[in-house]
């Protein structure tokens, strides 16, 4: 079984982001693996451990992704592909999905596992679009994957009414929820061994495609501007006798907040 996992590098959401002149201030930001993609990596490594599989990850953009990919190696991923091309600087989900399609078609895989969305854009489209481009079945928001035989997997997904259990014919694309597993922390031995492993770095040409081919020459959607989200004002704390506080609060609600 060959599994392809997609991994995106995103801004560490623990950090405060600042916006200046419609762009995110890069100073002081650090980038980490997208949390859902980490679940996807864990899911493919678990499948490998249980059923035996060759696991490959692909990551697009992000500059130097060496650390992130090495960590995935340390988690148990076998091969890593990193695609970096200036033409992809303004790419949207559709373009990423196209690139991923090319990656898929080059090697052919039995199963593609992606995180259900990325922490930075939260759009949740790439995996589904990829399935569309490939003409493969797709299950989103998956919380468990089980290989039933060579040709089928059984997956559970969180649906509106509860957990849905589906049998899917392979090849297929699944996008995973963060409740599918608890990603392991890369262990030291794995980290040390991963240092020696190669990463397959390539641009669009090396992938056998071009900006035009994947639609990067004319993106269908584009981010024009970033705006900072509104910071909530800190609450007020009142101390003293209950009756006095009540009076004060009522006064403020009536005259300042004007809720009455």
């Amino acid at each position, binding site marked *: 079984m060959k599994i392809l996992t997609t991994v995106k590098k995103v801004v*560490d959401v*623990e*950090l*405060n982001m600042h916006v200046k002149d419609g762009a995110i201030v890069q100073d*002081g930001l*650090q980038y*980490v693996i997208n949390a859902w993609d980490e679940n996807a990596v864990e899911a493919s490594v678990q499948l490998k451990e249980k059923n035996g599989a060759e696991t490959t990850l692909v990551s697009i953009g992000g500059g130097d992704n060496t650390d992130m990919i090495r960590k995935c190696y340390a988690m148990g991923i076998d091969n890593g592909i990193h695609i970096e091309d200036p033409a992809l600087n303004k790419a949207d989900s559709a373009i990423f999905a196209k690139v991923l399609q090319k990656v898929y078609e080059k090697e052919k895989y039995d199963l593609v596992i992606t995180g259900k969305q990325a922490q930075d854009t939260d759009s949740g489209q790439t995996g589904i679009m990829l399935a569309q481009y490939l003409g493969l079945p797709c299950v989103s928001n998956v919380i468990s994957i089980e290989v039933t035989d060579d040709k089928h997997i059984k997956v559970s997904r969180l649906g509106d009414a509860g957990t849905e259990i589906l049998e899917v014919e392979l090849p297929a694309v699944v996008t995973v929820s963060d409740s599918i597993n*608890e990603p*392991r*922390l890369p*262990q*030291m*031995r794995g*980290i*040390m061994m991963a240092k020696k492993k190669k990463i397959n770095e390539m641009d669009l040409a090396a992938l056998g495609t071009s900006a035009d081919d994947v639609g990067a020459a004319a993106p269908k959607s584009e981010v024009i501007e970033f705006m900072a989200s509104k910071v909530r004002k800190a609450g007020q704390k009142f101390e003293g006798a209950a009756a006095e506080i009540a009076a004060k609060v009522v006064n403020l609600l009536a005259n300042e907040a004007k809720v009455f």
Partner: protein
Amino acid sequence: MNPLLMSLLLIVGLGIFARTMYYKITLLTALEPADRFNHIIERLKSVLILAFGQKRLVGREKERASGIMHAFIFWGFCVLIIRSLNLYGEGFVKGFQLPFFGEEFILGYLYLAVKDIMEGIVLAMVIYAVYRRAIVQPERLHNTFEAYLVLCLIGILMVSDIMYDAARYNLIVLHGNPDHLHFFNNPQYGSEFLWTPVSVLAAKLIPLTEDALGYIMVAGFWTHITTQLIFLNLLPLGKHFHVITSLPNVFLKSLGYPHDKPKLLNLEDEAAWEDESLGLNHLRQLTWKQGLDLYTCTECGRCKEVCPAYMTDKPLSLYDFNENLKHELYANAANIIKRAKLSETLKQTGDSDAEQAEKIKAEMAELNSKKQLVGDVIAEDTLWACTTCRACEEVCPVTIEHVPRIIAMRQGQTTIAEAYPKELNKALKGLERNGNPWGIGYDKRADWAEGLNVKMMADDSDAEYLFWVGCAGSFDDRTKKVSASVVKILQKAGVSFAILGVEEKCTGDFARRVGNEMLFQMMAQENIETLNNYKVKKIITACPHCFNTLKHEYPQLGGNYEVIHHTDFIHRLVKHGKITLNRSLEGKLTYHDPCYLGRYNSIYEQPRTILKSISNDGLTELGRHGNESFCCGAGGGRMWMEELIGKRINVERAKEIANLKAANVAVACPFCLTMIEDGMKELGKEEEIRTRDIAELVTKNMK
């Protein structure tokens, strides 16, 4: 008496003993190296204080009685060594006396007196020891056959020697010394009888016939000699090996720092991964000193009694810990010795003969114990229960270093075995990504200092001191107040200082205590680079864990700084008149010693001096204080693990504080602050008993 019999006994007795000792020493030499032969004078000093002075036996109030008992038995043995040599001589030459110990020397008489009285005292102590074991039965003691056997043998040794003298005296006095037995008599010093009250008294009990006394004397002599040789040969076989090994063990104890620092592992070393020599994964990886520690464990159980894990029903009994390791060491002794020899051969073979080398390696692998060190010999829950508080080491009369073995085993568990509590992952990941175990964005590290007018090193690297805030001081809401208090004090005293702000990362203490050497080194290297970049020389910190790591462990990676704990620094400020304290704190005040400040760094007095200067009600000590303070439960990475087994350590400590009816409890460590305050909340006493850091108390009570 009988040179032939004497020779036979000595040859057999000492021969078997020498053989046993040879084997024990060979086993030690097969273990890993340890550098313990420097600073001889200092080492002799600790032997004098701890061994001959019996400091940890007599010095502890609650153990005074048994301490005195042991001390006299020990001193008795020291005294009796001369007597033994004399008796061996007597076996060959009638009336033999060691030089300067004969009847013409005052030394001879003095020695006789001391020896005689000592024998009486030791006998009394043996009786007390039996009474204590059989009737009082202290919880820490394990009543074993060996214990009674050895007490019995000591009793026989004393009685036989006393009876030998007593019978001799009666033969001389009552029967006119028919056999021309020797006895001291000197016009200047009087006769031997004047100097030996115990034997004279014993003589009064046996006014028998000449024949009977003759038999008693001969029997007393040979019983003493044979018992002594049997005793000598029994010692290495059990816990009484300490009689032989404790003096060297004390002599070889760690100096300068209370125990071996965690080993700086080279994770890049492929051979170490292959050999599984990162951390302690096999007993052969103990250092010979740690092997000697195991030989020396007396099974006295003092370590258990002060252990926060054991006292709250965790499955960690250091008594069993030592026992299990010792048995496993002995069970594998032959293989360990064989393996060490093969290892030597392998080194000599080198790369010259690859085939031969592979063969040796395979043979070596065969010699590993079939048991997993952690898992089969030491249970995982046992290993992870330790808070690394070092209370066990402080009370151990023979200076066994318990904690480094635990850290080394944890290193093995996180590197080779990859089997550590997974609940640590969140904190470890936080450390890796954002340099703090909470995993809060590193960009918020200096948020606590907003509006406090604190300089950043990036803006003013000329500041004299760096205030190392630590993760708790930066991210934990409660501890941020402590950081603010420290700032207030430093500003008041006009100290030139700055902080690193977002450039500071966890020192790596927590990672190292849980065996994650990679993260520790990563944190330490990055911090050292930052510190050296700003040419930082002096560091003040309010966290004893940061303090300990910066001061003692960063030098392993080339970071050398003068590190000062805030209590020590405040103490200096007061002493130099930079700040003036008011004795205005009302209510009973007590102090909880943090382990990494007290036991690890011997800072006991400075916090107390400060507290006494601000408290209008003095300072009331907790039952367990100073070097016997009871850990809050957060050290050794336990802060980041759930406490699911037994009682909660912090609640037990909080109860102790509550029982004292204190109104204020001072702490000097952010973890202690959290743990004690949480304990108080658990008891519903957080309003009644206020838990505050010394810095907070100082800001509230300074002019």
